[in-house]
């Protein structure tokens, strides 16, 4: 950080090289054996983008020079040909890079027998998504191809986000990385507070909960329904704290350097339906799939034609038919997206089930929307009333919990067992006995319960003031209050944080994807 801010004024335009060096130091420090993978992705992305760029330019030149001689039809044909060529060039890089990702994730299960990844390359999902997003943008001609290999290398490897995102978009992130930023005290405190907040969520909350969850998953078959239900609830809290805490740390570090990474979470558990949940949870991944998979699929000729065909049919002239014509192809596209999100998590049937489950719910919700709306009308329920909104939030949270069961349970069969036990085997006394043996004492349990309440209150405040941040609100308070918060924050992390040998605070749940 010192090197970055003390970088000679004379060489301002090379300030970004400090970030690149820091990123590679970080990456090499995490494991020398991974570096070949990220270099391959960077190089193939770099060359592929330049190639597409060259095709685009030469075709534009050709059209300009031959403007007079070509008829409208000829131009259209020529453009089609260019597009096909670019598509092939794009496909080459996509197949190569997603191929590596898929190979590492599936080879062990498919060819060698066994479970888990072949090799866990640090951040491979995140940098692959980010680079391929850039390539598709170059293909669409919405961003120019980067001509400096090292600048692209920084975009692919920027250290705060390499481990678990957020997945950056070239048009909003790249320029920020290359522009030299001066030290700014307000930005520094803002970033610092964000890092503290992230550390607190990660080390003083999530890591405690992890101990109990880990104890259950190690002997999964030994526990009854009450404990399993407790575990899934705890997991919902732990995953959110771990993942959003990690993202806060990333965003805080980047913020100190003057770089704004996108938000990745917006109080997801307050969502009123599952599709809203997916717009508020892991936002950068959702955006990626929306822009680069969902829209191209849903807007492809094949999908739009199905819609047209249904509309023209006899069925399409009925009210239900016109609704189905409108949403069936689109909801099928979203189903495919969730299926892909599911299998991206790993080579395991439980992730397939997770994808099918989420995609299925959204598909049904959209297809049956008129039925639901009609039922509400008949029951005289006002959709926007407060009690109904609370009902929707709780219902959505429960649907999310069902999805988490696939995450917590080691296998698909054990996930099914979990559902059965949660509904048939509730015994408070047995559960209490089991839960107290999970490695957390009563005081820690009380502390975690207090954290749930605390986070809930903070979330409600954030929800009410969604146009600003709590940090910005704090910065307007007197100095003593601000320093008090910093002091309490640091103390809380030191006192309540989980440390000790064998416990690596840098292990994030999502880093493994």
């Amino acid at each position, binding site marked *: 950080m010192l090197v970055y801010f003390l970088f000679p004024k004379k060489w301002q335009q090379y300030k970004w090289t400090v970030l690149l060096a820091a990123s590679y130091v970080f990456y090499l420090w995490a494991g020398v054996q991974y570096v070949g993978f990220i270099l391959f992705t960077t190089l193939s992305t770099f060359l592929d983008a330049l190639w597409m760029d060259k095709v685009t330019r030469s075709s534009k030149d050709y059209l300009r020079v031959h403007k007079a001689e070509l008829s409208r039809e000829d131009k259209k044909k020529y453009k089609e040909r260019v597009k096909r060529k670019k598509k092939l060039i794009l496909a080459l890089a996509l197949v190569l890079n997603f191929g590596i990702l898929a190979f590492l994730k599936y080879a062990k299960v498919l060819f060698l027998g066994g479970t888990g990844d072949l090799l866990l390359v640090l951040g491979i999902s995140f940098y692959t998504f980010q680079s391929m997003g850039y390539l598709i943008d170059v293909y669409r001609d919405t961003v120019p191809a980067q001509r400096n290999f090292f600048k692209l290398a920084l975009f692919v490897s920027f250290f705060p986000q390499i481990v678990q995102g957020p997945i950056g978009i070239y048009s909003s992130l790249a320029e920020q990385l290359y522009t030299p930023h001066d030290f700014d005290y307000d930005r520094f405190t803002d970033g610092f507070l964000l890092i503290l907040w992230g550390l607190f969520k990660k080390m003083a909350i999530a890591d405690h909960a992890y101990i109990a969850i880990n104890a259950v998953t190690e002997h999964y078959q030994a526990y009854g329904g009450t404990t399993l239900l407790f575990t899934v609830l705890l997991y919902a809290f732990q995953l959110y704290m771990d993942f959003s805490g990690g993202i806060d740390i990333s965003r805080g570090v980047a913020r100190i350097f003057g770089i704004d990474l996108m938000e990745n979470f917006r109080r997801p558990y307050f969502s009123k339906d599952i599709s809203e949940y997916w717009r508020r949870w892991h936002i950068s991944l959702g955006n990626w799939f929306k822009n680069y998979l969902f829209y191209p699929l849903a807007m492809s000729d094949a999908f739009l034609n199905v819609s047209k065909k249904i509309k023209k049919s006899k069925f399409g002239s009925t009210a239900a038919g016109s609704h189905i014509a409108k949403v069936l192809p*689109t909801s099928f596209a979203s189903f495919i997206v969730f299926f892909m999100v599911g299998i991206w998590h790993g080579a395991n049937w439980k992730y397939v089930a997770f994808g099918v489950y989420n995609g299925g719910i959204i598909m049904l919700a959209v297809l049956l929307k008129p039925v639901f709306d009609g039922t509400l009308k008949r029951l005289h329920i006002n959709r926007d009333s407060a009690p109904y909104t609370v009902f929707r939030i709780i219902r959505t949270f429960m649907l999310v919990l069902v999805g988490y069961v696939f995450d917590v349970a080691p296998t698909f069969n054990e996930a099914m067992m979990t559902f059965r036990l949660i509904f048939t085997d509730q015994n408070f006394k047995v559960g209490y006995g089991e839960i107290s043996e999970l490695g957390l004492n009563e005081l820690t349990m009380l502390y975690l319960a207090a954290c749930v309440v605390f986070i809930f209150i903070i979330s409600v405040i954030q929800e009410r003031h969604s146009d600003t941040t709590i940090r910005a609100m704090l910065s307007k308070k007197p100095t003593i209050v601000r320093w008090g918060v910093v002091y309490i924050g640091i103390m809380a992390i030191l006192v309540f944080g989980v440390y000790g040998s064998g416990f690596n605070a840098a292990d994030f749940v999502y880093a493994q994807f």
Partner: protein
Amino acid sequence: MEKVLEILEELRPDVDFESETSLVDGGVLDSFDIVALVGELNDEFDIEIKPSDLVPANFNSAQAISALVEKLMDE
């Protein structure tokens, strides 16, 4: 412009499209609405809206949408 408004109103009768200026950023139109809208616009004006046209700035208001349609009709 009028035809665009007509299509929009048929798609979502509950929204006041003449005054709304953050249809996408404000979350008024979701991705399903956008896809349905693209299908209608493509048919009506014989254009091809591509995924790369789907930036919020092109869909935030009825005005912006008709501007996009006009641009694509010229191509």
